[in-house]
């Protein structure tokens, strides 16, 4: 494990760590995900004045207790939850009021949320098809993606009959095939058994190494954070407070 990751996990338990924004500013890469004093409400729950900078190409892991608002932050970035104050910038572009489709953010939810009536091929092709790519380009890209994720043998299967691990691979493929700028992972390993969790974690490391995508992965697991994070963050008491690069 790299020193940076050790540094990150140590920082997680150290309340004297400097704030995230100032820490990430020192990183040479341009900032890709930027939250500026974002406030967001989810029913009776609210987060206020969130600040977050994640550099391009970084694998950021946002930790926090159950109910701390991790998913709410992710939904705000994806455009699935309207912010009540502040700005969200992705790659320098203000997307605060943009619909989800215009944000270039791929999402893998905790339960995969596959479309039961579609085949695995259809899942991987969807993002390319709605962007008007031709059938040849779609087939080529789906093949590449399926090969990386180890799901080539599943392409003709309907999503409804897949195991938990297979579903997560397909959800990852659906989010990555159209090459988004940002990949948001909402506790992608938490519903899996130990063996499958290790497989998917390994797969995430492969994705991290083989793509330029900037990842924001939320979890409550310290071990996931240690294994995957370039940048470790914590959401606590309505604030994102700690980081390490």
């Amino acid at each position: 494990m790299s020193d940076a990751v050790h540094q990150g996990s140590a920082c997680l338990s150290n309340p004297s760590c400097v704030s995230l924004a100032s820490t990430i500013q020192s990183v040479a890469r341009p900032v890709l995900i930027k939250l500026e004093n974002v406030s967001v409400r989810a029913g009776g729950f609210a987060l206020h004045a969130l600040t977050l900078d994640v550099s391009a190409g970084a694998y950021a892991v946002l930790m926090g207790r159950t109910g701390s608002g991790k998913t709410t932050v992710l939904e705000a970035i994806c455009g699935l939850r309207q912010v009540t104050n502040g700005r969200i910038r992705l790659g320098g572009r203000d997307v605060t009021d943009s619909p989800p489709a215009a944000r270039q953010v791929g999402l893998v939810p905790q339960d995969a949320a596959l479309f039961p009536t579609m085949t695995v091929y259809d899942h991987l092709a969807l993002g390319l098809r709605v962007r008007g790519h031709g059938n040849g380009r779609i087939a080529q890209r789906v093949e590449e993606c399926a090969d990386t994720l180890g799901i080539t043998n599943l392409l003709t299967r309907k999503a409804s009959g897949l195991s938990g691990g297979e579903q997560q691979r397909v959800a990852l493929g659906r989010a990555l095939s159209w090459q988004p700028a940002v990949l948001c992972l909402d506790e992608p390993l938490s519903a899996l058994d130990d063996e499958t969790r290790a497989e998917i974690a390994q797969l995430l490391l492969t994705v991290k190494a083989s793509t330029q995508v900037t990842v924001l992965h939320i979890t409550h697991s310290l071990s996931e954070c240690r294994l995957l994070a370039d940048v470790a963050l914590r959401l606590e008491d309505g604030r994102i407070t700690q980081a390490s690069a």
Partner: protein
Amino acid sequence: MTRRVSESRMRGGALPHSAWGDGIFWSIVCALSGGYALLIVALLLSNVGSVSWGVFLDVLVRPEIRRAAVVSLVSATLSTVLAMWVATPTAYLLARARFRGKGLLDALFDVPLVLPPLVVGVSLLILFRTPAGRLVERVLPVTYELPAIILAQFAVVTALAIRTIRAAFEQIDVRQEQVALTVGCSRRVVFFEIVLPQAWRGVLGAATLAWARALGEFGPVLVFAGATRMKTEVLPTAAFIELSVGNVQAALAISLVMIVAAMLVLGLARRLGVRDV
């Protein structure tokens, strides 16, 4: 004795009720539900058992009854098509959108189901006496004409269809639609490629129920369209007219036709997975 006491403690102590109590509870539940099931069976059997098959065949070949059957089938089908066209997007709106006044709109869509049928008919009649209604009548005569039957059926069955389709939409995980939006799908693509393929059983089930209800709609049709023989008479109004002139056997025969149609539709709806009929 000591061992018994310790075992009792280990099991959390003795329960204050016995298996007899559960038996009595289930006996009462079964007796009440069984009694109601018996009533329905008795209603159906009494109708079937009272029909003279000679009269049944005579009634079926009478031109005015055949005409009423055709008007019933055509109007029920057209009103169902119109109802589905309106109810499907409305049900999706209620299932997914959040907006001010949604509760009020939701309650409003239930009004045709809870209003007395006569009131629906009278209201339609009055609506077409207003200036706007008269304007429509100049272009397309509605009151006491065939369109009145379709509109009276449509007013009621759309509300029923909205309820049923909404339940089908609400069973679909909203997260799927959210993910599809992030992938780049428009709302139209999400609806037609993600939602409808999953909800088609519910939508088809709603259509069958709407059709059955339209076929049996009586009050609003009688008031708004009348029951002119060979023109606006439908099967329910035909049965009513036969009954009012003392021709009970003919009324029973027409009722039997509607019972068979309703049973077929109910069976189809169940086969399509619609349970909350």
